[in-house]
């Protein structure tokens, strides 16, 4: 259970930061007026799902001192 929660948690953190990073790189590469391959709406949706996944998984593996 803890291993599964850890995996979900780490994936959720990746889902929070990787899409915005990809959006930034693609937007800069596309230049002024260009459209990035990953739309901002998709970034927002992935981040929301990742947020829900993070709060579902974190209590099972994060230690509270």
């Amino acid at each position: 259970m803890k291993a599964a929660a850890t995996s979900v948690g780490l994936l959720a953190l990746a889902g929070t930061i990787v899409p915005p990073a990809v959006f930034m790189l693609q937007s800069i590469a596309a230049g002024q007026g260009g459209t990035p391959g990953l739309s901002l709406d998709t970034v927002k949706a992935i981040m929301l799902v990742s947020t829900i996944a993070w709060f579902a998984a974190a209590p099972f593996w994060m230690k509270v001192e």
Partner: protein
Amino acid sequence: MSSLEREIEELEESASSEYERQRVPAKALKGPSAFWGMYAGEHTAGTEFMIGPLFVKWGADAFSLIVGLLLGNLLAVLTWRYLTATIACEERLTLYYKMEKIAGRGLVTLYNLANGLLFCFLAGSMITVSATAVGPFFPPGTIEMPTFQSTMPTGPAWIASCIAIGVAMTLVALKGYGVVAQVGHYSAPWMFLVFVACALVTLGRLGTADVWALLTPPEGTPKTISFLGIVFFSWFCNAAMHIGMADLSVLRFAKKPSAGWASASGMFLGHYVAWICAALLLIYWVRQHGVDPQVGKDPGTMVNDAVGWAGLICVIIAGWTTANPTIYRAGLAFQGMIPGISRTGATLLAGGLCIAAGIFPAFAMNLLDFVGIYGTILAPIGGIIVVDHFFADAVGIPRDPAERSGSAFNPVVLVAWLVPVAVAMWLYKTQGVFASYLPLPCAIACGLLYIILSKLAARDAIAVRA
């Protein structure tokens, strides 16, 4: 009983037996990992969404933000490490108990009043920030959002939002803050990444990764904060905690003074990266939507625009997890001050004051000044503790004088505290001195006055006995 319930019970149990009137025993000491997470979570708060944009409003340049914040935060970490953590590990007492030994119980009550009221205004600012995240859930125009220039409530919908959020925070604070502390602990890594995500999306939309160029204000922008101002602001925005010694209560549990380095997680993640990320949000709105930096844009709208609902959840949680313990602590302060009041009554009183402060955006919109004043009022007490701990024997004054004499009120401490604070407030109000410049001279003046007055009092006592 679930593991979560067990954990909460253990947390509440430990909160009720925190060695408040004794040295922390060796069995209760904690390793450094306990402090790194705590500082990272505590200093990545909802108010960071306000402070970054306020730097833009004040015309801070790129060098000041990138180098000045680095220097100021480094100085803050060094203060925590070499002053607060050193004293905490040698004394192993709470600030309140140490103060009681020096100043007497009566003066601790006065300190509690100041502390409790300032806590309420701080938590009020957090309620204001969290309430800006409510607006995007409703059709545009339903809730009129405050700007940097707002001092009064913007309308009934705004007041209702603040009351709803403030009441929810107060009710949770009534239960003790075990659950909120846990949510804060879980959210810390995610919350920090949301701040960074806001910056990444903003850079993408602006089509550049040249942060230096983006942070450089356009020519003609009025500059109301200098490099030194940024250094002092970042050094002393938590003056009450480090030089003011409020964190004695936390760091007394550290095995070694090196735990003071843990403050670096809060300073460099929350007060460096997060502030710069939040500043970039407003820079985008200024450049792309023509928003006047002097008017600004509320955090909720900016974050929703950048990263959507995940950002709104972040604004609410960031405000909530820091406002809740603040309301709880303010409640404790009031309980210590008002005889006979129950914990529930004291927390409700604190919650009510916080909500009233949150409804008025003036506190959140003047946060740069407010945290300076907060430090100026509370930090001088730290100056007295530093003198008592390091210099009392050398200069020939008694250590822990109130405890030795059995006094409940040491007037020397009161005068040494109030005179520099009164001078500082005069300088702030009439001479326009930036509030963050005041905590350090105030603390030093307070320590020096304490030495002089203690020596005078001792001489008078000898003369009377003779």
